[in-house]
């Protein structure tokens, strides 16, 4: 019986090393932002970022797992270690870079646009009520401008706010709004000019995770060079999205 502790310790050590070998990288995403990331009718998380993330993991030899998390708490929960990477259409900004670090961008700076009911006067951009998702680049733009901002936790609610007249227009990524405009049969239109508020979209990791950040950046660069990233962009986004 005196040998039991040793075998037990050996068993634990063996299990621990086994756990290390098949380490899982957990990727946090919102699952409510088509076509970047969303839940389809089969209850699967799909979208541009899901295809990209899975490809990156395959090339890096990592086994990856997707985790859904609300947008509002997506950075705190990364920092707390609930997952290791954020891929959720997150623009690389100065303010976010102080809390987490970003890989190189996997989407170029993409256009933002205002969407409103047909017949809305474009002057609402400066003087009306603009719906935005909270904690987004667009929320910052509205806060700095002269229009009144109306913030919602989910992107879906910003669209409803415009439909039911709570807001005059919604400001969001143009590629998110485009399907709503196309499906509405002329009820919803873009107003004003597109503009480019961010400096591209990247994957966020904890500031201490340098190794993971470098791995991801290397593979994103590789995918930019061999054209596979552009192919994915083409597959998921309308022509409005810039390519590398």
């Amino acid at each position, binding site marked *: 019986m005196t040998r039991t502790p040793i075998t037990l310790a050996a068993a634990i050590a063996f299990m621990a090393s086994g756990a290390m070998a098949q*380490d899982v990288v957990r990727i946090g995403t919102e699952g409510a932002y088509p076509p970047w990331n*969303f839940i*389809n*009718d*089969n*209850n*699967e998380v799909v979208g541009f970022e899901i295809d990209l993330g899975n490809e990156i993991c395959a090339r890096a030899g990592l086994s990856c797992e997707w985790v859904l998390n609300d947008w509002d708490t997506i950075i705190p929960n990364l*920092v707390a270690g609930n997952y290791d990477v954020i891929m959720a259409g997150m623009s690389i900004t100065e303010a976010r870079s102080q809390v987490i670090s970003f890989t190189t961008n996997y989407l170029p700076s993409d256009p933002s646009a205002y969407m409103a009911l047909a017949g809305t006067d474009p002057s609402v951009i400066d003087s009306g009520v603009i719906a935005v998702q909270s904690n987004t680049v667009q929320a910052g733009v509205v806060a700095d401008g002269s229009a009144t901002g109306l913030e919602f936790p989910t992107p879906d609610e910003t669209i*409803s706010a415009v439909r039911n007249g709570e807001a005059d227009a919604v400001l969001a990524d143009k590629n998110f709004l485009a*399907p709503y405009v196309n499906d509405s049969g002329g009820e919803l239109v873009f107003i004003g000019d597109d503009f480019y508020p961010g400096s591209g979209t990247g994957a966020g990791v904890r500031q201490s995770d340098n190794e993971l950040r470098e791995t991801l950046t290397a593979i994103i660069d590789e995918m930019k060079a061999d054209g596979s990233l552009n192919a994915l962009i083409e597959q998921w986004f309308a022509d409005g999205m810039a390519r590398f």
Partner: protein
Amino acid sequence: MFSFCTDPSILPQWQWFACYLTTATHFAFYRAFVMVIILLIITAPIALGMGLLGAIAVRSRIWPVSWLGRGYVNVVRGVPDIVFFMFVPIALGQGIEWVFHHIQCPDWDQPIRQGNDFIVCRDAKVPPIGSPAWVRDLYAFAMAVIAYALVFGAFAANTLHGAMQAVPRAQVETAEAYGMSRAQAFRRVVLPQMWIYALPGLSNIWQILIKATPLLFLLGIQDAVYWARELGGQKTSLYTYPHPDWRVWYFLVLLCFYLFLTWGSERVFSRLSTRLSRGQATAAGERLRKAAA
């Protein structure tokens, strides 16, 4: 689900709905209702147990125990539920990791709190790093059960304490006159008879517990409210079943579900009340006696 569901865009209306309502996301929505009922079945006895312990502690003659009981009941009842639901899972989660951290990694030299971050060593993470999704879901669910039991236990404790006081003093005196100890009198006389006094209060707490289950949504659990919002939102042609904003219908379903649940439990409680009134020296007990005679 059905064989005709392969191309929903060309289906006539009733078949479209048959396919739409049987998608995997809708089954997740239906499972969420089952989860609410499971949560209630698990939480209610735990909360009642907490309440009984709390009430006994408040009555205790040993003052530290009594103070502990009073502190628990008054602090929890004095704080908004929603604050507790946010606080307990975070505080408890970090507390558990903190303890494991000190057991597993005594040599760790960095501070656990670095600014906003709460950083413990890899081995101290709960659930362990690399555990499958269902373990994490179960952990989150268990945290929710603990939060509910803590909050509703305090309300139950107050109700049960009141009910114990309501048992006629003369009965306890009689028990003591027969030579029963304080504990025996409590077990044999107070405990069996207090339920009829506790029932109206307990049924209130149960109804409030039912109505508090949508707070699961706040804890990041994909409950019925999450799915109602997710499924009801407008779906563009990126989805297989595009539709406009239908949230009002989904929330109507939720409303009916909760109404049905509370209506059903009200019926159960009124039966229970009749059953417990039998032979009691209360107005209801007296009515039962006369009706039988």
